[in-house]
């Protein structure tokens, strides 16, 4: 029986070799198209995992910049935020983000297989590849939300995370993403689209503006400003953890920018990834140089901020600029972050520098597309950057028009995100309260909000040793007088 089956398989294999015409040209093309799409989605899947890895980057970066009494809360925050934003995105956010009118998406709520999304010629039924893209979008939304909390470390009430995460995942981020990427207002401004390849404004500026709204209502940490009003350093407890966080974010960014190609055609993601690397490197150099010139020391945290600023800066231009422009964009972002951190610190207590690294570098990145956008790479309808007017034959009206459109994206993002975020945080402040009590802040959020320390041995003596004495001494029994034999034994040991 087995032998006959084997023979049949061999015959079939032979037949398929001698009769290639069985598969028609049309089906070959169809199969190729299907396989191409599957390979594209495989790349998006890899990128999605890298972008989710960035959550670990934010976790360690923020924990490293916190004091030892506020480290466990950083873990809880990232986990709970990621969980809530996932459900909010699946139920509502994805729908608001996708196909619809100029202002918000109208289909795709409670995302499910076979659901019809969109109308007319652009309508489609949800299949596995759409699901992959939906998950990729969620990873972006989660990154944007994680940025918000950088300014709020060591003093915010945990409940604020929960409420704001719902609003952010369901409304705030989806509105901005819809405007730029979902066919909304900013996808066609007088014929020119906003070019934000992976989200310098959509993801990073959005997160930073949310962070600003939270910070304005929250205020500084106790002791951040001295009696003279001058800012004081509150050093984070672990620069090694900050470094680990920065490198995880850096690696995750290859998925963030590279994955935003959504396809493997021509291996274009390679160009995007090289741009990403060049800008991150230049960001480190720019920030290190700036802080060294300013204080004659190479501040470890600032070098990390420089890497993040370079990466944020290149996020929008990564798919639109030539390799030579990427280090310039990253270097400028690195300079911006240092001077901005020092300037902002005089008024606002931003422990990790999120306003500078994600906000100002995000604005710079969005505008940089209007300066360096290359004719070879920009999207249809858009104009190349000002550089190509100065040193090429692109008209200044066209390139400045594109720069203005990029500026409009910044203004739109700021206004929409700030309005909704400020309202949400004000509501939280008026109801459950935004900030922990002075006593809780002094004790640390780990023990006051979570009932445990992130590093218990720093604060509590190890209770497990107190009952572990092997002798009767630990039981409280009367101490027996040493016998003469014991005394002799002790003496002889001493003499040995």
């Amino acid at each position, binding site marked *: 029986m087995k032998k006959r089956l084997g023979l049949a398989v061999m015959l079939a294999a032979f037949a398929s070799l001698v009769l290639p015409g069985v598969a028609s040209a049309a089906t070959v093309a169809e199969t190729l198209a299907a396989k191409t799409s599957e390979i594209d989605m495989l790349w998006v899947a890899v990128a999605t995992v890298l972008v989710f890895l960035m959550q670990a980057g934010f976790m360690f970066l923020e924990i490293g910049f916190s004091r030892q009494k506020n480290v466990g809360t950083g873990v809880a925050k990232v986990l709970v935020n990621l969980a809530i934003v996932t459900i909010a995105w699946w139920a509502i956010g994805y729908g608001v983000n996708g196909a619809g009118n100029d202002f918000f998406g109208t289909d795709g709520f409670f995302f499910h297989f076979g659901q019809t999304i969109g109308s007319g010629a652009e309508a489609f039924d949800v299949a596995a590849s759409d699901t992959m893209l939906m998950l990729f979008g969620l990873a972006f939304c989660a990154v944007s939300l994680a940025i918000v909390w950088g300014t709020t470390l060591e003093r915010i009430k945990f409940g604020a995370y929960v409420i704001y995460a719902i609003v952010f995942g369901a409304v705030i981020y989806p509105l901005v993403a819809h405007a730029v990427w979902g066919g909304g207002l900013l996808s066609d401004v007088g014929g020119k689209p906003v070019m934000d390849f992976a989200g310098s404004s959509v993801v990073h500026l959005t997160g930073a503006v949310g962070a600003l709204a939270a910070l304005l209502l929250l205020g500084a940490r106790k002791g951040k400003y001295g009696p003279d009003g001058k800012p*004081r*350093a509150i050093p984070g407890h672990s620069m090694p953890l900050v470094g680990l966080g920065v490198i995880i974010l850096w690696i995750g960014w290859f998925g963030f920018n590279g994955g935003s190609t959504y396809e493997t055609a021509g291996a274009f993601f390679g160009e995007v990834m090289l741009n990403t690397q060049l800008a991150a490197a230049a960001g480190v150099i720019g920030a290190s140089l700036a*802080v060294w010139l300013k204080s004659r020391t190479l*501040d470890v945290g600032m070098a990390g901020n420089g890497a993040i600023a370079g990466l944020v800066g290149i996020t929008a231009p990564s798919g639109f600029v030539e390799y030579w422009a990427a280090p310039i964009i990253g270097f400028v972002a690195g300079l911006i972050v240092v001077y901005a*951190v*020092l300037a902002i*610190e005089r008024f606002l207590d931003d422990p990790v520098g999120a306003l500078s690294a994600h906000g100002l570098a995000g604005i710079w990145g969005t505008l940089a597309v209007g300066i360096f956008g290359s004719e070879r790479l920009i999207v249809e309808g858009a104009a190349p950057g000002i550089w190509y007017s100065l040193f090429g034959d692109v008209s200044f009206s066209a390139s400045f028009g594109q720069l203005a459109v990029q500026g409009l994206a910044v203004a739109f993002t700021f206004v929409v995100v700030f309005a909704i975020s400020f309202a949400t945080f004000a509501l939280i402040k008026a109801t459950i309260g935004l900030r922990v009590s002075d006593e809780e802040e002094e004790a640390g959020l780990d023990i006051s909000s979570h009932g445990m320390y992130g590093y218990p041995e720093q604060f509590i003596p190890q209770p497990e040793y107190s009952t572990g004495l092997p002798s009767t001494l630990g039981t409280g029994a009367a101490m027996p007088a*040493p016998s003469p034999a014991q005394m002799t034994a*002790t003496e002889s040991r*001493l003499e040995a």
Partner: protein
Amino acid sequence: MKKIEAFIRHEAFEPIRAELLDKGFPSLSIVEAKGSGRQKGIVERYRGSTLTVNVRPKLKLEVVVEDKDKSLVVETILKHSRTGEVGDGKIFVLPVEEAIRIRTGEEGEEVLQVHSEPEIPA
């Protein structure tokens, strides 16, 4: 009995410990201490702000010895902990009333150190 408390630089401890053991004084303890004195604090720079830590880390070495051994131990500590720079530390000698070995309950000077010779050559 005398208790010798010495605030010393971290790097001075190991040679002191080695020589004291060699001379028959194995029993000592150290505590990580932070303190201020004539030596200035440490100025840290963090994200553009400066931060002065006014206390510096030192080691506190504690040895309890019989009265006759005091000078020997003090000299050993001085020998290894003096660099001549500000910040070498200080030595204090205090009287001790009683000494009890917990394991056996023995009392008196014989519980202090382990040395077989009755007289330690200086």
